[in-house]
C-alpha cells in the first residue's frame, strides 16, 4: 500500500485529468470575498438530445462528488448513487443526460482548501474563504451554460444535495421544470449543527491538523477525520436498522477480548468506514462544507421567509422523506411541502417507510426508486409536450 502522502500525490495527478471548466465570471461569495477563474469539476452521463430537454442536474451530499454512477476513476469504487442512476435505472442514463458538479470547497477537482492560494503559492488551508450553500449553487450556473442547457428537465439531490436544490430553485426559479428534494431541510437544525460541530472538533483536535496547515506537509489528520466520519455514519443509520444489522454481534471472535480493540461488529464497521474515508477526502473540506450546511437557512434570505423563497415557482416539486431518518426528519421535509403549498407551487410529497434511516436515499429502496422513476418519466412527457407547444 502506498504511503498517505504518495496516495495524495497519485490522487492529485488523476484529478488533473477529470472534466472541469474554469469559471471566469467573478463570484462574489456570501462572506464578502470574491473568487474568479476557479475550477469547477463535473461529470456527465448519457447524451443531451437534440431538443435539449432531457437534462437532469444532480447535487451531491457532504461527502459525495461528481461521480454519481459507474466507477469513480479516482477511488476505483462505484459511484455514490449507482442504485438510482445508470442505464435502465430510475434515473435512466439511456434516456436522460445526467450532470453533477463537485461543490466548491470540495476536494474532487473544484476549487477547495487544498488548492494553491495564488496570493502566497501555499495551499489555502484556513485562508480559503468560508462558503455557503448559495455560493455552491451559484458556482454551478456557469456549468449549465457551458453544457448548453437552458432549462433542466429535473434537478435533484439528497441531504446537502437537497439543500442545494432548494437554494437553486429559489435563486433560479426558471431553470428547472421539475425538482426532487430528498431527505433534506430548508434550514439546518440545532441537532445537525451539533453533529457537524462534533465532526469539526474531532478534526481540529488531531495535532496533525495543525490549524489546517497539514496540506503542505503532504499529511492528513486521519485520526480526527476518521472520527468525524464515524459520527456521520452513526447519524445516517436508524436505531432499529443498526440493531438489526449489528446487534451485539462480535467481530470474528467467540468472546470478549477484554481490551479496547474492536470487539463488536459495529465498532469494526465504524473504524473501517472512518479510515477508508481518509483516503479519499480532505479534512479541511469537511470543515468548510459542514460550515456551509450549518449556515443554511433559506427562510433567512427572504423577508417573508420560505413562502417568499418559493414565490413565482413554476417548477413542479416532489419532496421525499424516509420514516426512520432522524437527521433530516419527515417533519422537516413536510415543512418544505407546507411552504411550497402556501406559495401555491405544484408540489407532491411521499414518505417512504423504511428502517434504513437517512442512508435510505443511497440504498436499494424499491418504493423510493419506483417513486423517483414514476415522477421523472411523467415529467419528461409533460416537458416534451410543453416545449412542443
Amino acid at each position: 500500500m502506498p504511503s498517505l502522502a504518495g496516495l495524495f500525490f497519485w490522487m492529485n495527478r488523476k484529478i488533473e485529468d477529470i472534466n472541469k471548466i474554469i469559471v471566469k465570471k467573478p463570484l462574489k461569495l456570501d462572506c464578502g470575498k470574491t473568487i474568479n477563474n476557479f475550477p469547477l469539476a463535473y461529470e456527465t452521463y448519457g447524451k443531451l438530445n437534440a431538443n435539449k430537454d432531457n437534462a437532469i442536474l444532480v447535487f451531491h451530499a457532504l461527502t459525495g462528488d461528481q461521480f454519481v454512477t459507474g466507477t469513480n476513476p479516482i477511488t476505483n469504487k462505484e459511484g455514490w448513487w449507482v442504485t438510482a442512476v445508470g442505464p435502465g435505472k430510475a434515473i435512466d442514463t439511456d434516456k436522460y443526460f445526467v450532470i453533477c458538479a463537485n461543490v466548491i470547497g470540495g476536494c474532487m477537482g473544484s476549487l477547495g482548501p487544498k488548492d494553491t492560494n495564488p496570493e502566497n503559492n501555499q495551499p489555502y488551508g484556513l485562508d480559503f474563504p468560508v462558503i455557503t450553500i448559495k455560493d455552491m449553487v451559484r458556482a454551478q450556473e456557469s456549468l449549465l451554460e457551458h453544457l448548453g442547457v437552458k432549462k433542466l428537465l429535473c434537478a435533484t439531490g439528497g441531504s446537502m444535495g437537497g439543500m442545494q436544490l432548494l437554494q437553486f430553485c429559489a435563486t433560479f426559479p426558471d431553470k428547472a421544470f421539475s425538482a426532487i428534494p430528498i431527505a433534506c431541510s430548508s434550514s439546518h437544525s440545532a441537532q445537525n449543527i451539533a453533529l457537524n460541530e462534533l465532526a469539526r472538533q474531532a478534526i481540529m483536535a488531531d495535532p496533525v491538523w495543525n490549524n489546517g496547515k497539514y496540506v503542505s506537509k503532504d499529511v492528513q489528520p486521519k485520526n480526527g477525520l476518521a472520527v468525524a466520519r464515524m459520527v456521520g455514519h452513526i447519524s445516517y443509520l436508524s436505531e432499529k436498522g443498526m440493531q438489526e444489522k449489528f446487534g451485539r454481534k462480535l467481530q470474528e471472535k467467540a468472546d470478549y477480548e477484554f481490551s479496547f480493540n474492536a470487539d463488536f461488529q459495529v465498532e469494526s464497521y465504524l473504524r473501517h468506514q472512518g479510515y477508508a474515508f481518509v483516503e479519499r477526502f480532505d479534512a479541511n473540506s469537511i470543515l468548510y462544507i459542514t460550515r456551509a450546511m450549518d449556515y443554511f437557512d433559506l427562510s433567512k434570505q427572504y423577508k417573508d421567509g420560505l413562502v417568499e423563497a418559493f414565490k413565482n415557482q413554476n417548477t413542479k416539486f416532489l419532496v421525499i422523506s424516509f420514516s426512520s431518518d432522524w437527521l433530516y426528519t419527515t417533519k422537516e421535509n413536510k415543512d418544505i411541502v407546507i411552504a411550497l403549498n402556501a406559495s401555491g407551487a405544484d408540489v407532491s410529497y411521499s414518505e417512504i417507510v423504511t428502517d434504513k434511516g437517512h442512508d435510505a436515499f443511497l440504498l436499494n429502496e424499491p418504493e423510493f426508486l419506483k417513486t423517483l422513476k414514476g415522477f421523472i418519466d411523467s415529467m419528461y412527457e409533460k416537458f416534451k409536450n410543453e416545449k412542443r407547444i
Partner: protein
Amino acid sequence: MKKEFKVIAELLPNNTRVLDVGCGDGFLMNFLREEKNIEVRGLELNQENVQLCIRKGLPVIQGNAETELHQFPNQSFDYVVLSQTLQAFYNPEKVLKNLLRIGKAVIVSIPNFGYWKVRMKLLFFGEMPVTKTLPNTWYNTPNLHMCTIKDLFKFCDEKNINIKQVVGVNEDKTSLIKKSNLEIKNLFSKLGIFLIG
C-alpha cells in the same frame, strides 16, 4: 367512470383550482385535469395510490386528512372534494370545517345510511347492513360516523353551513334533493353529493 365522479365533475366549472382529499389512484383528478383544464392537487394516505398518482404526473401529497389539512392555506382552492370519506374520520365536524376553510366551496359525498335497503336490513333482519356502497361488516368497517342525507342536511343547518346543491345518486339515476323532497330522496338515494360553502 362511476356516476358519482360524473356528478362531481359536472358540479365543477372549467379552469378552477381543486383539491381532492382522499384522491385514491387519481382517477378523478386526471379526468378533471384532462377534460376541464382544472388545476388539481390531491391528498392521499395510501403509499401505493400516491405512487400511482405520481406516475400519472398528478401532484399529490401523502398524508392524513384527519391531521394534516392545516398545511393548506385559507381559501387556497376554488373547490375541495371529499368523496365518501367523511364518515371515516374521528372528528368529521373538524374535518368539514377545515375543508370549508381551505376551499371557497366544498363537494362532499356520503354513502346514505337512510337508503331503504339499509333500513330494511336493520329493521327486518336486525343486522348491520352490508351493501354495495357499504361493503364492510361491523367489525372491520372504516366507517365510524355513518349518517343519512337528512342528517347531513340537518348538520349544515345547525352549523350555518350554506347548502348550494344536493344531488342524490341511485345507480345511474341522479336527482336534485331539496327540503321539499328530502324524506323520499333520503329513502331512495344510495349516495348523497353535497355542494356547500
